[in-house]
């Protein structure tokens, strides 16, 4: 991707996925929370890891950002995500 367009892409991605998660939580439609998290992460990771040859760096990225997502989701699930 053109480096000049990267901030625009990131902002758009954050707005779309953040909005999906926010309204998913607000209207308790958790499928949209899942979509927002998954597609947001894939969109971000795909651009960060695009063309990278550093395998160790890529794995480190997945472990750290993935852990952050898991901790955030556990926090969210404990607060609002009931079983039913």
């Amino acid at each position, binding site marked *: 991707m053109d480096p000049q367009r990267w901030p625009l892409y990131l902002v758009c991605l954050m707005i779309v996925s953040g909005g999906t998660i926010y309204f998913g939580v607000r209207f308790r439609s958790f499928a949209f929370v899942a979509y927002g*998290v998954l597609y947001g992460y894939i969109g971000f990771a795909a651009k960060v890891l695009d063309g990278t040859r550093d395998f160790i760096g890529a794995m480190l990225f997945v472990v750290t950002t993935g852990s952050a997502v898991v901790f955030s989701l556990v926090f969210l699930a404990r607060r609002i995500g009931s079983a039913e």
Partner: protein
Amino acid sequence: MRMHSPEIESNIHLERQIRDWARSGAIDAAQSTTLLGDIRVNVKRTNFFLRAVLFIFTVLIAAAAVALVAATGHLGEKTIGILCIISGILAFLLANILVNEFQLYRFGVEEGLAVISIPLISFGVGLVLGFDLFGHSSKAPWFLGITTGTLTAVAVCWRFGFQYAAALALVGIGMWADAVAETVTTKIALAAALLLAVAIVARTWRRRCVRDYLAAEFGAIETLAFVGTYLVLNVHLRVGLASYSTTLRYGGLPAWFYWFTYACIWILPVIGFILSLREKHRLMILASLGIALATLATNKPYLGREAQTWDAILFGLFLIGIAIAIKRWIAAGPGGYRHGYTVASLLQGDKSMMTALGTASVVLPGANTALPSHAESQNNFHSGGGYSGGAGASGQF
């Protein structure tokens, strides 16, 4: 021994049923509140979608962490194998700790850790014993890797009650038979016999057990094994990856075995349907209907007849006719019932299942591939004349 006590499992099963009855209007809100008040479920659970995302990310992190250690240490194949085994055992133990300490129940994280332990241990054992991903290794590492993986899947299912672990174990049994037997005939026969044996054992346990949640679990395993038996025997059904596609293997079968499998794919749905109808085993009824459809769909290829474009239309009309006839027959019974069955959708859960089936039908492959798209039709049409009412007069013949 199971991680959660039978009381917790029974209460969760009962709670789910009460919520379904309340949603369906079988009991009112006050009754539902009273009944739910009597049930104590002290475990941490979450919504299905959050659970699914947590599961995916946990598996991703665990796999990436193992790959990171292996890449950082520049480890050899056997050392990677040992790393995988140790990581698999640690993941399994961590899942146990999460359930014990934090009382997680189907929360996604502990599921991901327990499930990732299956391929890690299986792959690790294979690598330690000399399995070569990019070369021709002997059969023993492959065989022992599958065996260990299958046993780990059984252990995960036994310990946590995850039914998808049972499904993985059944896949492992099929792969084990494939690794052990020499000819295509013995591979199919051994896999089918083992899966059928699992189905019979699960059925026996289901009929003996007194707890509803256990009966439901054994019923699911029985159905999975029964469907697995069918999938192995129907040599014209395309299942899974191209290398495992059963379509590719019927060419090497002796004629007697080929016709034996043909008889089996007709007999299995009938047996499954009759038994499940008698026992009101809903999952098996659905599975039997599903495999009956698969039998009808693969009948022509079995007989070596050419498939026609209108086959699917006739097949659909035939199914619609059968469904309408059965529905009218049951509805015409006294009180709209026949032998304890009704066409009315009594529970909300049934409607949800039908909705899920409808959604799943959209992703069926090949549904829209028979006819060319409008754009393709236009591109394929080479007009040589006939513009503006010329009626082809300028065309080159």
